[in-house]
């Protein structure tokens, strides 16, 4: 956007002369003056609708008063306009009172049982702009209630004031126009089409913006009142967008999460995962006491002192033997990730540390090094003329970024290209051009397109962006192809990992090749800086990646492992990962919940989930998102504190006792100033054209699935997209599949059976959700994206 002078107009509001940019909506100008006009349907991020008529004001144009009071939320300012709001005009005041009376005619006296009570714009404005009694004596219109429009969102039609905020949100912002206005007149109501439930990943926002209690959430229903709640600003832990949110707690429990207002990041929205998935905090799987494996092989609760002593002794022995590896996991704050990075170097004496708890490659690491100083922001994505997404499905893997891209598509016709397999709902809602590729062949496809043509032309427009997801690591050569395309077109590249902690962990050196600030292990000068700060000598030899560490553990080349929040089932080969965890001599696990790792661990140290810790997430833009704990204590400590104490038991000091101490220690190091070169790997061999009865597998995760942080949320799970096997019509026919019938996708390890749905995949390709109920691709099949699988009907 340019900052050239915008045209302005001068008008008078309530006797005050004000200059406003041309085209501004009257109600906004009033707001800037501190004059609040009551309103229901007006929302700064939605198109004006003029549906509720609550914002009536008197307007005089060119000396002539307009015949009737005007809706200030649809009228744009004009030169010489004279506006009188309810403060100076009895006419406007009377009009507003009349509208309020009308709105209340059919509004039930539900305030005592309504979740919105106490924070309800209708309550507040009925007090400020309404009459104390009603002239309406007839029977109010009633509807059966509540009407579940999804398992999470409940609609009470009696309370609705027909402001259309919800329908406009679903239609304009989310692009899921499943709720709409039905009927006319007094019977007008919000509803869903019979055959289509309101299935949206962003449905929670409609609850938050509904100005009455017509939309409520099943999870928060009747749980508390606004005055019971202690609200803390927080940052969402579920993906790498780092959305501003607000955590409301009561009696030591999180009651709900609301979207915070951060125009630079999430605007005022949250995806449903961020809003509703928090009951894991109280799940039965949570660990809050240290556990130690006794002689009989059972984990028993012990004191912190004993657990730390045994852990330190075991790790010291392992270090003296064949060494320790450190797996940090992708859910750490910057401070906690730094503690892992430093623990590995200082206490374990190794560069064998990696945060990547998902398929990864050496090529990816080379690519990530070029991504250490991110340049792309949400605003840049919004302003970009064209966007290409690689290795990610925007809606499923980065919901808030998806909303931004959709906004840009709507507002200025941004061109979106998606390198993928089928027209997912996300692809359709961004009107993206789908660049179809057989799974695994994405790199070659991108290389072919880099030669010239539509894609190159579009991306050559200044400000274009290539968004790369972390799934790109599953395709050899893809990062190199992206780098090449970026060089050719001048488009900026942004790495958008799926997990909240990934970028922070990269920045602080929780990777085998980099030290904090992105200093290469192999750069003597950079290494010396860290050596001076930490008072240790570091090896010049880069460490091993997650897979290599686990392979070494399996073969006995490592004697100890310290594992943070890693789920072996997320890794490329879960069986191999589990073998590594099972065979390693000594395994220390830092976890918030029981997992496949804690089952094998010798010592389990509980760590604090977000609600109990402070810290900073680094979102995909590289923006720091600090947050404070929303609940006190809970007897759990953040990873950095646990590692610090463990290190002290091992006789070294990490100086990461608290997140702020860790941040201080980290910031003293400062960033690295050198540069890195992009990877130049050739694409791997393209998967063979499928033989009879087989197909190439495409797979990625859906936003709402079996993720560990989504446990105990039945209402949320009910809004997830149903797991389906997808294939195109020709492939389905060749494989003998029928739409709606069952298909079984198998390898030698196991099989996944799900109903079939047809989609526009390339020939010979089937798609499965990666981690949904009944479809755990990596752990059941042992393979992933781009692998050959057998497909049979039934």
């Amino acid at each position, binding site marked *: 956007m340019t900052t050239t002078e915008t045209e302005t107009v001068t008008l008078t509001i309530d006797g005050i002369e004000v200059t406003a940019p041309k085209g501004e909506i009257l109600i906004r100008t009033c707001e800037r003056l501190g004059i609040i006009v009551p309103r229901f349907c007006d929302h700064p991020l939605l198109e004006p609708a003029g549906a509720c008529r609550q914002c009536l004001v008197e307007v005089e144009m060119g000396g002539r008063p307009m015949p009737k009071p005007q809706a200030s939320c649809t009228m744009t300012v004009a030169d010489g306009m004279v506006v009188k709001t309810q403060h100076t005009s009895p006419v406007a005041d009377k009009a507003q009172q009349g509208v309020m009376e009308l709105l209340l005619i059919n509004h039930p006296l539900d*305030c*005592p*049982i309504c979740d919105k*009570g106490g924070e309800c714009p209708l309550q507040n404005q009925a007090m400020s702009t309404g009459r104390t009694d009603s002239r309406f004596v007839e029977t109010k219109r009633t509807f059966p*209630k509540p009407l579940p429009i999804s398992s999470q969102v409940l609609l009470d039609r009696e309370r609705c004031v027909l402001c259309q905020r919800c329908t406009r949100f679903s239609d304009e912002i989310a692009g899921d126009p499943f709720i709409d206005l039905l009927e006319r007149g007094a019977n007008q109501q919000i509803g869903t089409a019979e055959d289509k439930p309101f299935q949206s990943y962003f449905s929670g926002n409609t609850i938050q913006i509904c100005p009455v209690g017509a939309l409520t959430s099943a999870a928060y229903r*009747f*749980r*508390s*009142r606004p*005055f019971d709640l202690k609200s803390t600003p927080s940052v969402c832990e579920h993906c790498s967008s780092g959305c501003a949110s607000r955590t409301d707690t009561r009696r030591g429990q999180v009651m709900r999460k609301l979207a915070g207002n951060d125009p630079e990041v999430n605007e005022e929205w949250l995806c449903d995962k961020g809003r509703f998935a928090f009951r894991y905090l109280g799940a039965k799987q949570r660990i809050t006491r240290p556990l130690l494996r006794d002689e009989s092989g059972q984990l028993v609760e012990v004191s912190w002192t004993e657990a730390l002593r045994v852990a330190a002794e075991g790790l010291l022995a392992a270090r003296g033997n064949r060494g320790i590896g450190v797996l940090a996991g992708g859910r750490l704050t910057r401070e906690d990730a730094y503690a892992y990075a430093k623990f590995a170097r200082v206490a374990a004496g190794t560069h064998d540390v990696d945060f990547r708890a998902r398929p990864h490659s050496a090529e990816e690491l080379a690519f990530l090094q070029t991504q250490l100083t991110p340049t792309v922001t949400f605003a840049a994505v919004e302003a970009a003329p064209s966007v290409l997404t690689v290795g990610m499905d925007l809606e499923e893997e980065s919901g808030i970024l998806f909303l931004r891209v959709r906004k840009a598509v709507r507002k200025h016709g941004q061109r979106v290209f998606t390198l993928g397999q089928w027209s997912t709902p996300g692809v359709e809602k961004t009107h993206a051009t789908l660049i179809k590729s057989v799974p695994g062949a994405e790199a070659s496809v991108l290389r072919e397109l880099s030669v010239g043509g539509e894609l190159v032309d579009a991306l050559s427009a200044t400000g274009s962006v290539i968004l790369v997801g972390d799934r790109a690591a599953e395709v050899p050569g893809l990062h190199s192809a992206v780098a090449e395309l970026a060089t050719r077109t001048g488009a900026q590249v942004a790495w958008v990992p799926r997990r909240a902690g990934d970028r922070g962990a990269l920045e602080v050196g929780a990777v085998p090749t980099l030290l904090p600030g992105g200093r290469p292990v192999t750069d003597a000068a950079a290494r010396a800086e860290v050596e001076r700060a930490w008072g240790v000598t570091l090896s010049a030899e880069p460490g091993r990646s997650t897979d290599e560490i686990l392979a070494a553990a399996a073969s006995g080349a490592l004697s100890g492992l310290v594992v943070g929040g890693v789920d072996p089932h997320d890794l490329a080969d879960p069986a191999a990962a589990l073998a590594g965890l099972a065979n390693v001599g000594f395994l220390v696990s830092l976890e918030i919940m029981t997992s496949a790792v804690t089952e094998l661990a010798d010592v389990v140290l509980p760590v604090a989930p977000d609600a109990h810790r402070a810290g900073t997430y680094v979102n995909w833009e590289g923006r720091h998102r600090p947050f404070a704990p929303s609940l006190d204590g809970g007897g759990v400590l953040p990873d950095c504190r646990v590692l610090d104490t463990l290190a002290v038991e091992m006789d070294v000091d990490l100086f990461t006792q608290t997140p702020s101490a860790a941040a201080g220690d980290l910031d003293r190091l400062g960033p690295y100033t050198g540069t890195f070169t992009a990877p130049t790997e050739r694409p791997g061999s393209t998967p063979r054209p499928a033989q009879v009865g087989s197909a190439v597998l495409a797979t990625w995760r859906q936003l709402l699935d079996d993720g560990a942080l989504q446990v105990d949320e039945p209402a949320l799970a009910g809004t997830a997209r149903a797991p389906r096997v997808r294939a195109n019509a020709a492939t389905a026919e060749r494989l003998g599949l029928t739409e709606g019938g069952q298909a079984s996708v198998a390898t030698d390890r196991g099989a996944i059976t799900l109903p079939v749905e047809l989609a526009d995949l390339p020939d010979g390709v089937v798609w499965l959700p990666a981690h949904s109920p009944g479809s755990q691709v990596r752990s059941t099949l042992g393979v992933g994206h781009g692998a050959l699988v057998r497909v049979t009907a039934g």
Partner: protein
Amino acid sequence: MFDFFKGFGVTFSTMFKKVVTEEYPEDFPPAAPRYHGRHQLNRHPDGLEKCVGCELCAWACPADAIFVEGGDNTEEARFSPGERYGADYQINYLRCIGCGLCIEACPTRSLTMTNFYELADDNRQDLIYTKEQLLAPLLPGMEQPPHPMRLGKDEQDYYVQGPVLARQGVESDPVGEQVR
């Protein structure tokens, strides 16, 4: 000489007046009819609870003595007519100042005050009254919730025709508001 009798004048005259001292606890004198005593959570004539868990009483209380948590009535387990009921209800009598603002706030006349005034104990814990202690006793014709609505098909029937239904129910003191 007369000073002696003068001095006892008050004593002797009082001896023959009616005494105002209450013989508590041997005697258990009733309090004034509108006395602000222990609270009670009333029931509908069929035994369903009147409390809808709205927390307005807690909101009104100047002493922060009340704790309420709402809950969802289901078809299987119904405690009150309508969607919502008070799942958890506690009044802390260490805090309550007997002002009665809570009963004024209550939209369903669920919360009222009885004349019971023996609110003392030797420990703090026992002075936090829970929902079970505060609920009105079941009178004849009432049934222990959870149970389905017996007096109509929805909560409107209970509220709109409440008094009528009540009169049909038990003749006197239908909702047990005047339990001692």
